[in-house]
């Protein structure tokens, strides 16, 4: 098994005719994801790559295709509306790749989506992949391989680095999830840990955090109280100065809160093995 997506996932791509949307739609189709439709207002009735039907609105697309997931590649100023449109159309799983969504927009989107019972992943995230089954987002498929490890991360390329090293060490993955680097995101570490704990095929979990906020600390307490599976952790930003936004909107040490040291300590206190370097994750997984 896997979490959130598998071979029953029927995916829509919002922004399928855009530069990023079209490139990644092709990559997802090549990987084997069942892309059942695309949405671009004004291009309804056309076909993407001669095969995938395009619709003007998400509700039309859902009615015609029976989509049960969507991935959003629209520009930041339109992303909030796209997420809410998807939730209103009854899509239960919404992935937003777009970086640069204003945080005040997200305060509205978060309650809107939750009130409609949908799960939102992102924004500002690489999406997720269940190797060999389905990929939604931009994680390069060729670095992943099926296996028993679940991975959840706030980062993109750092995730690729770790997945790559795991794959080279013959440690395959059930699902790799990027929850995104923004201060307000739809899915948290705890949501993913809960899903990995419930997934019978996942035997161990890797959690990759970074500076800013206290999601990692709360996740660490969750691991101690609720999880039976071993968890290995890594935190990026040990050398980050306070008060500066380190690329990700959410990666900022506020005052003295949200430091890497604080998070690594929370990991250790709650039984999570802490990798000092990315490569150490592989060794710690072997011992787990």
């Amino acid at each position: 098994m896997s979490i959130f997506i598998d071979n029953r996932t029927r995916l829509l791509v919002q922004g399928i005719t855009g530069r990023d949307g079209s490139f990644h739609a092709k990559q997802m189709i090549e990987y084997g994801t069942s892309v059942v439709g695309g949405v671009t207002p004004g291009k309804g009735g056309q076909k993407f790559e001669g095969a995938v039907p395009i619709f003007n609105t998400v509700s039309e697309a859902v009615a015609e295709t029976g989509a049960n997931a969507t991935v959003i590649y629209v520009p930041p100023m339109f992303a909030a509306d796209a997420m809410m449109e998807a939730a209103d159309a009854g899509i239960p799983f919404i992935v937003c790749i777009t970086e640069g969504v204003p945080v005040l927009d997200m305060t509205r989107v978060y309650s809107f989506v939750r009130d409609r019972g949908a799960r939102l992943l992102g924004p500002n995230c690489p999406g997720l992949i269940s190797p060999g089954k389905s990929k939604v987002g931009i994680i390069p498929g060729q670095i992943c391989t099926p296996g028993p490890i679940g991975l959840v991360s706030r980062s993109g390329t750092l995730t690729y680095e770790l997945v790559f090293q795991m794959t080279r060490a013959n440690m395959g993955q059930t699902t790799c999830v990027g929850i995104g680097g923004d201060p307000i995101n739809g899915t948290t570490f705890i949501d993913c840990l809960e899903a990995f704990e419930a997934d019978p095929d996942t035997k161990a979990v890797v959690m990759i955090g970074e500076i800013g906020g206290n999601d990692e600390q709360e996740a660490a307490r969750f691991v101690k109280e609720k999880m039976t599976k071993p968890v290995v952790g890594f935190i990026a930003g040990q050398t980050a100065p306070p008060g500066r936004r380190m690329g990700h909107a959410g990666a900022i040490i506020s005052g003295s809160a949200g430091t890497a040291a604080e998070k690594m300590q929370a990991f250790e206190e709650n039984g999570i093995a802490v990798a000092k370097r990315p490569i150490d994750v592989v060794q710690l997984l072997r011992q787990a």
Partner: protein
Amino acid sequence: MNIHEYQAKDIFRNAGIPIPAGDVATTAADAEAIARKFGGTVVVKAQVHAGGRGKAGGVKLAKNPTEAREIAEGILELTIKGFRVEKVLITPAADIATEAYVGIIVDRASKRAVFMVSPAGGIDIEEVAAATPDKIMRLPVDPRYGLLSYKAMQMGFFLYPDLKQARAAAKIMQQLYQAFITSGASLAEINPLVTTPGGDVQALDAKMVVDDNELDRRPDVAALRDESSEAPSEVDARNANLTFIKLDGNVGCVVNGAGLAMATMDLVKYYGGEPANFLDIGGSSNPEKVVSALRIITSDPSVKAILFNIFGGITRTDDVANGIVTATRQNPLTVPIVIRLTGTNEEIALKILQENGFSAMTDMDEAVKKAVALATGKAA
């Protein structure tokens, strides 16, 4: 994006918040003229993007225009937490009976804008939170309804037992919330909110941080950016669409992706070096970005070695290789460079680099170790 106190005050004033008059001076002579216009005692306040201005000697009282000139002259020569003071704000000194704190932040845990108010104002709110947490009231705002009047009154009464003052404070909080939303802020703060001996409620200081992601749709707010108060290398990087933060070390880092960039800095430190910067060239693979990145890094004289760490996903490593070749043709390097790249189009990238006299590695740890050795002069 940080804005100055005087800019935040203009925004708050336009929202209707009572704030004493004030004018900005860039020279001591202007400061004197402004002090003369206001008459009486004035406060001279450094306008820099740094907290703790008072402790750093950036906020002082002046009893008369001559003193205002002398004080402004001193403050305009200060550097506070690395920021040179280019402007001072002159305001008439107020008589203060009490000082309170009112702030709004976007709270990650509740995923909403949250008010924080305290009758213990005038000092760092983090200190109040640590020492006397019961003196802080926190109130999340539902974005669908905004700040409802009764909630504003709850906070007003938390600050002042007097009805008239509680009402005045509640009104200010609603005005502050409006200013916060319409500016696309991630933080708005009045510290202190004072009462005068006559019973009036006024904002004596103003702080606002704007969400960078809002600037594209709020050109009026974006225009408030003061580039003279930022490090030139950071301004240059932003104009090239790069995220760059200057640090104190000597290993210049060029990385794709924020998480990997932080992890690379950490690894430099792990192997005994010090990173000179955080630099994320982002997800797209544009050779121009690499050229800009190298220009910015090499203009820092403390950089003794350059480290590229590229994990090609969306980023095509051959584009990065081409960028390195172009940039070094334009401006030959004077410091050693270590290139690690792996992922999309790795074979092509390695070939491009070899043909142009560069060597490249595929292992991150080995590359970092080598860069640290070169920077510290311990390379074999």
